[in-house]
């Protein structure tokens, strides 16, 4: 069977000593960074990306994937112990995780999230192995019109699911525009280079990611940096859940996994929404909903399972279509492109070892996560006690050195600085920045596909709409845009929904 072959190929790739080592390093460093306040998965992945330079592309991706779910996990640790969500995805975990910690049940909460994450992640990986080849096979027949339409849908979906959809759409547009800087592939004309030689190659996406997620995050977090946070001790013994807690979290984990897995596949939506839906459903079907917000274990396991299942299934569109489901996925694609591998449905044919090795390493990484985090919880707790004013200068330097090593260019550090300050300004104006990066990565591909589609259709845009798949996809995107405008015109509704 094909799937079996893929599994075998995957595990034989992932289980080499080198890949295992880098997977471990990735998971370890990812958890470390994710546990720090203000560093989410995206910032962690972009900060550690320089470490993968010179590695074999599979190894590089294996390590970054390890960083990705390691930091998600570290983020949930910080949410539970400190009520400081590292990422929006972890925000839901705070609702019941922090009350549990205050009741002295932090150990149980941490153990339950580890297990729920592991279960969700494992199911997500099975889905990845079974669904991705079919999707890729189907997608191989896609022409530029279909690609153009699917990417537009991905971008629109990423934008309109934000609190303020019009602002989300503007950030996507800004991202694509930033992506047009540099030499145009078709004509060789350098666009928006301001006479700067360095900009002819385009803006380095690492500089952009580090600026808007690294530096601007530090600037934003410094707003309310307190002293050393109070963190309670967590012992291994305190992590064992009671029989009742075990029973209550079992089905909640399964439900969260199903929700997360389904939502993660949708391009652009990602797992954040799935965690909210998972939480809402648990609250609705619970016999005593008043417990939610006061330390209900269902309220943490379901979102965490959803988050991790979604984190894995988000790789399905990323690896089989080349369309990233989230900004973190966009960074992963950027890494592939940097290594000279073109993402898209042909990826499974041309580089099966990359795709399946990566998928297998997800599972190994999830096992490592459990093995690492249960015994090492004491270390993470100690790390959370380090006051922020001793951390942020070090993070800042890490960002600068990391950016510099990519192209040995101080110009890129300057870009980081500019994007950092601009990103901070945009944050103050309550813009979401993840769509910028998705737009930036997808922008050049969208432009290329649009141009090719128009060339084939002799400039007749109706030809794109007339093709069934691209027509339907564009219609959905258009509907979402209309909905975005409608939601913005009725602000009172939107304000209520967001609370």
């Amino acid at each position, binding site marked *: 069977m094909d799937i079996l072959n893929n599994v075998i190929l995957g595990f034989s790739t992932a289980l080499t000593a080198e890949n295992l080592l880098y997977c471990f390093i990735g998971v370890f460093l990812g958890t470390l960074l994710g546990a720090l306040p203000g560093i989410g998965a995206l910032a962690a992945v972009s900060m550690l990306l320089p*470490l993968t*330079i010179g590695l074999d592309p599979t190894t590089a991706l294996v390590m970054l994937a390890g960083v990705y779910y390691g930091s998600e996990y570290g983020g949930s640790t910080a949410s539970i112990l400190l009520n400081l969500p590292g990422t929006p995805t972890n925000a839901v975990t705070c609702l019941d995780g922090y009350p549990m910690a205050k009741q002295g049940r932090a150990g149980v909460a941490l153990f339950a999230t580890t297990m729920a994450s592991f279960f969700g992640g494992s199911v997500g990986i099975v889905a990845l192995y079974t669904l991705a080849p079919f999707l890729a096979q189907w997608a191989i027949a896609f022409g530029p019109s279909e690609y153009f339409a699917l990417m537009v849908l991905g971008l629109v979906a990423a934008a309109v699911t934000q609190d*303020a959809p*019009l*602002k989300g*759409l*503007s950030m996507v*547009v*800004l991202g694509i*525009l930033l992506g*047009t800087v540099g030499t*145009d592939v*078709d*004509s060789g*004309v350098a*666009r*928006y280079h301001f006479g700067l030689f360095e900009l002819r190659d385009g803006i380095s996406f690492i500089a952009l990611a580090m600026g808007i997620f690294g530096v601007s995050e530090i*600037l934003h977090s*410094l*707003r309310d*940096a307190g*002293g050393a946070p109070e963190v309670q001790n967590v012992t291994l013994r305190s992590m064992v859940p009671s029989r009742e807690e075990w029973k209550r979290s079992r089905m909640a984990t399964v439900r969260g996994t199903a929700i997360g897995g389904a939502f993660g596949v949708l391009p652009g939506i990602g797992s954040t929404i799935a965690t909210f839906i998972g939480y809402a459903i648990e609250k609705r079907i619970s016999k005593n909903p008043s417990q939610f917000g006061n330390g209900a274990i269902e309220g943490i396991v379901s979102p965490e399972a959803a988050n991790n299942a979604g984190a894995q299934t988000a790789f399905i569109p990323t690896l089989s279509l080349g369309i990233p489901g989230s900004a973190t996925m966009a960074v992963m694609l950027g890494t592939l492109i940097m290594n000279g591998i073109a993402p898209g449905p042909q990826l499974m044919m041309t580089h099966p070892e990359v795709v399946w090795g990566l998928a297998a390493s997800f599972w190994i990484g999830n096992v490592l996560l459990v093995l690492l985090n249960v015994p090492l919880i004491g270390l993470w707790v100690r790390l959370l006690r380090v006051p*922020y*004013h*001793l951390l*942020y*200068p*070090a993070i*800042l*330097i890490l960002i*600068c*050195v990391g950016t*510099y*090593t990519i192209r*040995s260019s*101080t110009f890129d*550090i*300057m870009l*980081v*600085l500019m994007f*950092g300050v601009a990103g*901070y*300004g*945009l944050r*103050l*104006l*309550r813009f979401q920045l993840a769509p910028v990066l998705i737009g930036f990565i997808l922008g050049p591909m969208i*432009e290329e596909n*649009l141009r090719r589609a*128009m*060339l084939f259709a*002799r*400039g*007749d*845009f109706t030809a794109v709409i007339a093709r069934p798949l691209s027509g339907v996809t564009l219609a959905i995107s258009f509907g979402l845009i209309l909905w975005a405008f409608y939601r*913005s*015109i009725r*602000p*009172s509704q939107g*304000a209520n929904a967001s609370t």
Partner: protein
Amino acid sequence: MVKLDKTDLISGLVVLAISSFFAYGALDYRIGTMTRMGPGYVPLVLGLIGMVLGAAIILTSFGRSGGLESFRWRVVLPVVASITAFLLLLPRTGLIPATFVAVVVAAFASPKSRILPTLLLGVVVAALIWIGFVVLLGLPIPVLRSPF
């Protein structure tokens, strides 16, 4: 008094300004036709879309009230100075002095920083960065250089 969401008003203006800049800049490049798009086509269209979005955000900012978060110069300036110092010093003095100076300058962004711990932090971070990136990873970064 007219109700106005200042955050959204400024947001819209910012989007409008950036989009107009790109749309105007696109006119410098060949626009081309629908069939054969020139390098200016896509940026022009996107700039126009962005301008529409910016205008729409400005329109929605009326009719509801909202404040504006202030830009914290006391946090931003030290961080800007720190990164600038790093990128200027790196090619001239090498990694270790650049890191040390950047850490110390960055510390000014937090009122909690004290002189001795900050200097110590600078030494520790410089050492760790040197060990991590140069010794272990072997990346070609100048470590120590005389500026003269």
